[in-house]
C-alpha cells in the first residue's frame, strides 16, 4: 500500500527523486573508492616507503571525499524537499477528499480517526520517505558496490560474503517478520490512547460533575499501559537488531583476517588487499546496520499508508453531477418523492415512503417522536446524504442533478447540533455569506433575537468565539446559528429543531420576526414543540419512519390520533383548541 501510495504521489517529484538517486549513486561510489585508495596507500606507499605516493594518493582521497560531501548534502536538500512536499500534498489530498464526503462516510470513519489519518499517519509516511531517500537508498548501493569491489580484491576470499550476506539477510528478515504485526498493534493502541484523550477533553465537564476523574484516570491508565507494553515489545525487538548486526560485523571481520591470513601466507594477495577487503566487508555490514536500524519504520509506515489510502479510496456516496443543472424552473420549491433512507448494513430503514412538497412562501413542519427520522429527512435537502430510494427535488430539479454551489446557495440550514467555529461572531455569521456587510449581520442578529447580547459582548461583532461555541450559552449559540443561516438570505430555510434551547418568550419573538423575513421563502422546520409549528401551512407527522398524517394543525388535531397525542402531552385542552 505504501508503494502504491508513493507511486501516485511521487509523480510530480519523479525528476527530483531521480536527482536524489543520481547524487546518492555518486556519493556511494565515492565512499566505496575510499578503502580501495587506502589499500593503495598501504601497498604502494607505506610498504615501499614511497612518501610521495602516500601524499598523492591522500590528495586523491581528499578530492573524492569532497565530491561525496557535495553530493550527499545535495541529496539531503532535494530529499527534504521531496518528502515535505509529498507530505503536504498527501495532507491536501486527504483534507480535500474528506470535504467531498457525505454524512455517511463521516459516520463510517469518525472525525477523530480522520484527524489522525490526516496528520499523524502522514507524518509517519513523511519520515519514512525522508530516511529512505537520505539513508536507506544508499544501503543497497553500498552493499552491491561493496561486493563488486571486494570481488575485485580477491575472488576466493569473497566466498566469505556468500556466508555473511545470507546470514545477515535471514536475521533481518526474522526480526522484520515479527515487527510487522506488532506495528499494526502499536498504531491501533496509539489510536485508543488518542481517542480516550479526545473524549476526556470533550467530556471534561461531565467527568468533573460525576467526580469520575479517578475512573477516567484508570481508563486512560489501562490504555496507557497497553501502549507501553506494546512499545516495550517493539523496543525489545529493536534492542536486538543493532547489537546482533554489530556483533555479526565483528565476527565477519575476524573471519576475513583469519581466512585472509592463509591467502596472504600463500602469497595470493597482499596485506593491503586484505586490509581493503576488510574495509569493504565492514562497509557492506555498515550499510546493513543502517538498514536494519531504519527498516523497523517501514511496517509502521505501511500501516499508516493503508489507513490513508483507505480514506482516499472511499468515494462519497453523494456524487457530484457530471453536467449539473444550473437553473431551477421553480426556485422556492422543495419536494420529497417517496423518499427512503437506510444506513448501509442496517436492517431497517430510518425513513420510508416519505413524500411532501413546499413552495415559496409556505412553511412545512415535521413533527414526530425521538428517533422517528426527522433529522435524517432534513439532511437530504442540502444533500448531506443521498436517498436510498425516491428523490428529493429542490427548485423542481432532483438534487442529484443540481449544481452543488447553487444548491447550497439556495438553502439556509440550521442543524440540530449547535456548532460554531472558532473565530469571531462576524466570521461565524459570514460563514455562509462572505460578502455580507456589518449592517446585514446586525439585521440577521435582530431577527434571531441576538442583537442585545452581541452588543453586550466585548468587541461586539468581533467578540471571540471558541471552538464549538462553548464560550456562549446554549441559547445564544442557537440564535447565532440561526443568524448565520439568515445572513445568507436563502430562498429555502431548513431548521432542524432550532428553537429548542430558547425560552418561550424569545422563541415567540424570534418566530414573529422570522415570519416577516421569510414571507417569500420556503421554510422546512423540524420541531419538538407544537406551538413552534402550529401556524405552519402543513404539518407532516412522522411515526417510526413513516408519514402518518399531513395537514394543518386543526385538521390533524381533529383527525390524527398521533398528532393529537403529541399536542395533548404539551398543552392543556384549552390551549390546544
Amino acid at each position, binding site marked *: 500500500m505504501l508503494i502504491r501510495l508513493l507511486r501516485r504521489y511521487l509523480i510530480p517529484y519523479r525528476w527530483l527523486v531521480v536527482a536524489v538517486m543520481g547524487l546518492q549513486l555518486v556519493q556511494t561510489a565515492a565512499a566505496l573508492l575510499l578503502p580501495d585508495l587506502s589499500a593503495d596507500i598501504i601497498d604502494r606507499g607505506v610498504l615501499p616507503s614511497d612518501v610521495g605516493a602516500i601524499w598523492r594518493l591522500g590528495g586523491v582521497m581528499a578530492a573524492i571525499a569532497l565530491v561525496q560531501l557535495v553530493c550527499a548534502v545535495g541529496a539531503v536538500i532535494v530529499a527534504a524537499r521531496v*518528502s515535505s512536499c509529498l507530505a503536504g500534498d498527501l495532507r491536501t489530498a486527504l483534507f480535500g477528499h474528506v470535504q467531498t464526503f457525505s454524512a455517511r462516510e463521516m459516520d463510517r470513519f469518525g472525525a477523530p480517526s480522520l484527524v489522525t489519518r490526516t496528520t499523524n499517519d502522514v507524518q509517519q509516511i513523511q519520515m519514512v520517505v525522508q530516511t529512505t531517500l537520505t539513508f536507506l537508498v544508499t544501503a543497497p548501493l553500498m552493499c552491491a558496490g561493496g561486493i563488486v569491489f571486494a570481488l575485485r580484491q580477491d575472488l576466493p576470499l569473497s566466498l566469505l560474503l556468500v556466508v555473511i550476506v545470507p546470514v545477515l539477510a535471514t536475521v533481518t528478515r526474522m526480526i522484520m517478520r515479527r515487527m510487522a504485526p506488532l506495528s499494526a498493534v502499536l498504531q491501533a493502541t496509539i489510536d485508543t490512547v488518542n481517542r480516550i484523550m479526545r473524549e476526556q477533553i470533550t467530556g471534561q465537564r461531565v467527568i468533573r460533575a460525576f467526580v469520575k476523574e479517578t475512573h477516567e484516570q484508570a481508563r486512560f491508565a489501562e490504555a496507557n499501559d497497553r501502549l507501553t507494553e506494546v512499545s516495550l515489545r517493539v523496543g525489545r525487538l529493536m534492542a536486538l537488531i543493532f547489537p546482533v548486526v554489530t556483533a555479526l560485523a565483528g565476527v565477519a571481520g575476524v573471519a576475513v583476517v583469519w581466512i585472509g591470513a592463509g591467502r596472504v601466507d600463500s602469497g595470493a594477495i597482499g596485506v593491503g588487499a586484505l586490509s581493503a577487503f576488510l574495509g569493504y566487508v565492514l562497509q557492506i555490514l555498515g550499510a546493513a546496520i543502517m538498514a536494519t536500524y531504519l527498516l523497523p519504520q517501514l511496517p509502521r509506515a505501511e500501516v499508516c499508508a493503508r489507513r490513508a489510502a483507505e480514506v482516499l479510496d472511499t468515494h462519497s456516496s453523494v456524487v457530484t453531477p457530471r453536467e449539473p443543472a444550473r437553473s431551477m424552473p421553480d426556485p422556492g420549491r422543495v419536494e420529497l418523492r417517496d423518499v427512503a433512507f437506510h444506513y448501509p448494513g442496517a436492517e431497517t430503514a430510518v425513513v420510508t415512503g416519505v413524500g411532501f412538497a413546499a413552495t415559496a412562501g409556505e412553511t412545512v413542519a415535521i413533527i414526530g417522536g425521538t428517533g422517528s427520522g426527522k433529522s435524517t429527512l432534513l439532511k437530504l435537502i442540502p444533500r448531506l446524504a443521498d436517498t436510498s430510494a425516491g428523490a428529493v427535488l429542490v427548485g423542481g430539479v432532483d438534487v442529484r442533478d443540481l449544481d452543488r454551489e447553487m444548491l447550497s446557495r439556495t438553502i439556509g440550514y440550521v442543524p440540530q447540533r449547535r456548532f460554531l467555529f472558532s473565530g469571531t461572531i462576524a466570521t461565524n455569521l459570514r460563514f455562509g455569506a462572505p460578502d455580507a456587510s456589518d449592517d446585514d449581520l446586525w439585521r440577521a442578529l435582530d431577527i434571531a433575537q441576538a442583537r442585545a447580547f452581541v452588543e453586550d459582548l466585548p468587541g461586539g461583532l468581533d467578540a471571540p468565539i471558541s*471552538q464549538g461555541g462553548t464560550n456562549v450559552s446554549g441559547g445564544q449559540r442557537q440564535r447565532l446559528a440561526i443568524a448565520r443561516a439568515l445572513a445568507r438570505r436563502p430562498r429555502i430555510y431548513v431548521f432542524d429543531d432550532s428553537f429548542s434551547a430558547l425560552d418561550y418568550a424569545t422563541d415567540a419573538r424570534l418566530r414573529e420576526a422570522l415570519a416577516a423575513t421569510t414571507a417569500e421563502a420556503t421554510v422546512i422546520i423540524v420541531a419538538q414543540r407544537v406551538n413552534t409549528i402550529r401556524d405552519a401551512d402543513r404539518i407532516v407527522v412522522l411515526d417510526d419512519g413513516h408519514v402518518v398524517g399531513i395537514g394543518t394543525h386543526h385538521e390533524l388535531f381533529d383527525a390524527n390520533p398521533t398528532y393529537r397525542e403529541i399536542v395533548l402531552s404539551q398543552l392543556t385542552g384549552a390551549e390546544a383548541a
Partner: protein
Amino acid sequence: MKTSPTVRRLWPTLTHQRWLFAGSLATGLVSVALAAAGPWLLGRGTDLVLDGALRHDLDYTGLSRVMLAAAGAYAAAGLFAVVQARAANLAVQRVLRTLRADVEDKLTRLPLGAVDGQRRGEVLSRVTNDIDNLGIALQQAFGQLVIPLFSIVATLAVMFWISWLLALIACVTAPLSIGAAAWLIKRAQPAFADQWRHTGEVNGHIEEMYTGHALIKAFGREQQAIDAFAAGNGELTDATRRAQTFSNAIQPLMMFLSNLTYILIAVVGGVRVAAGALTVGDVQAFIQYSRQYSQPFSFLASMAGMIQSGLASADRVVELLDAAEQTPDPTGTAPPETVRGAVAFEDVSFGYQPGRPLIEHLTLTAEPGHTIAIVGPTGAGKTTLVNLLMRFYEIDSGRISLDGADIATMPRRHLRSRIGMVLQDTWLFSGTIADNIAYGASDATRDQVVAAAKAAHADRFIRTLPEGYDTVVDDEGGSALSAGERQLLTIARAFLADPAILILDEATSSVDTRTEALIQQALTRLRYGRTAFVIAHRLSTIRDADTIVVMEGGAIAEQGTHDHLLAAGGPYARLYAAQFAATA
C-alpha cells in the same frame, strides 16, 4: 539555551528511572570496552599475518588465539549491548507512560475555562504528535546516545596508547566537527519548533473542520475550508523542509570530516611506517579505530535532528504541563456522612472575564428538599449559576454554602459527588450503553442500570438497538443515536447516580414532547426528598416549584412561588403571559 528549562522541568521524571538508566550505562560501558578491543585484536592479527608473510612462516596457533579472542570480544560486546538497549528501552517507555499520565492528570486540574477555551485539536496534537515525537527522541538519546559517547572515549584512549601523534590528528578534527554540527543545529532548532507548532495548528484546523463537516457541506464552504487549510499546510510543509534539510545535512558533513581524519591518519601513518616508527599492523588498526572513533560522531549527528525535534515537542508538552491550574483542593476535611441539601448563594459576584461581571451581588437560598426553578431569558446567567455551584468556575466574591459550609473550603470531589447533573450538552464515551448509564455508579448491577433506563424512558429505544444494552456507542456516533436518545441516556445516568442535589440544565430540550411528559413525571418522582435546581423554559413544568427565581441580566429580578409571582405582576407574570400568548 532555550531548551534547558524544559530539560530541567522533565529531569525528575527522568531521574525516577535512574537505576535503569544507570544499568543501561554500565552495560553500555562494558559493551563499548569489549567492542573497542575487537579492532585492536584484529590489528594484532594483521601484524601476525604480515610477519608471517615476511618470514614465510605464519604462526597459526598464535593467530587462532588472537582471532578467537576477537570473536569472543565481539560476541560479548553484542550481548552486553542487548542488555543495555533493553534497559534503556524500559526506562524510556516508563518515562513516556508517566508523561502521558501526567498530561491526562493535568487535564483534570486545569480550570474548565482553559479546557473550553482551547482548540481541541491543538491540545490533542500536544498529547499525541508531540509526546509520540518526544518518545522517538528519548529512545534515540538513551537507546543510542551512551554507546557512541563511550565509544568515542574508549577508542580515543586506545588510539593514544598506540600512537599519540595519530591520536592527536584524530582529535584535531573533533572541534571542527562539533563546530560544524552546532552551526547546523542552531538553524534546525527554530525550524523544528515551527514544524511542531504548525502541526498543532493544522491539527486544530482539521479537527474543527471535520467536526463541523455537515455545516461546511450545507453552506458550500468546502473551498474556503481547503483554502484556510492550504495556508497552514504550506507553512507546515516549509518548516518541515527546513528542519529536515538542516538536521540531515549534519551527517554528510560529519562523514566528510571523518574521511578527512581517515586520510590524514593514512598519510601521516604511512609516513611514520616508512620512517620505521610504526608497524603496518598499528596503522591498519589505527585506520580502523579512526573509523570507529568518527563513526559515533556521524551517528550522534544523525540523531541530532531527532533529538532537536524531540526537544521542540518537549517544550510544547511542558507548556501544557505548566499551564495555570485551578486552586488546589483543601485536604483533610472529612465530608459529612449525609447531606441535607441546603444551598445558599450569599452576595455572589462573578464574571467569565475579569472586569466584566456577569452576576452581581446575587443572594439565593434553597431549603433541603425544595425545588428551585430558574427562569429568565437566555444569557441571563442561569447556566453560570450551575457552573458556580459545581465549582466549574470560582466566584469573584461572596460565598456559596452547602449545609452551611462554604463550598470553597471543601474538596471539589466531595461537593460534586453530592450533586447530580444533566447537562445541556450530552456526552457519551465510547463504550456500551450500559457502561454509559452506569457512569456515575460504576458498581451498579445490570438490573439497576435497566431500572434507571426505565425511569428515564430510555429502556424502550435501547431494546430496539441491535445489541440492546451492550450496543457500543461513542460521542461521535451521530447516526446511531438521535439527540433526544442521547439525552435520555444522560438522564438515566443521573437517575442511577442518586444524588442529594439535582441540577437539570435545559436537560429535556431535545426530547420529543411525548417523551418529555413521561420524563417530567419521573423527574418529579426523582426530585422528591432532594434539593433540585431546574433550569426550564416551559413554565408549565415548574408551576409546582417551591421557589421560582427569575433572572435578568445576572441578577435576580424576583423570586417566589408561581401564584405569588403571578399575583405580583412582575417579570414572571410578563414571561408567563408571553408564553400563554405564544401557545394560544
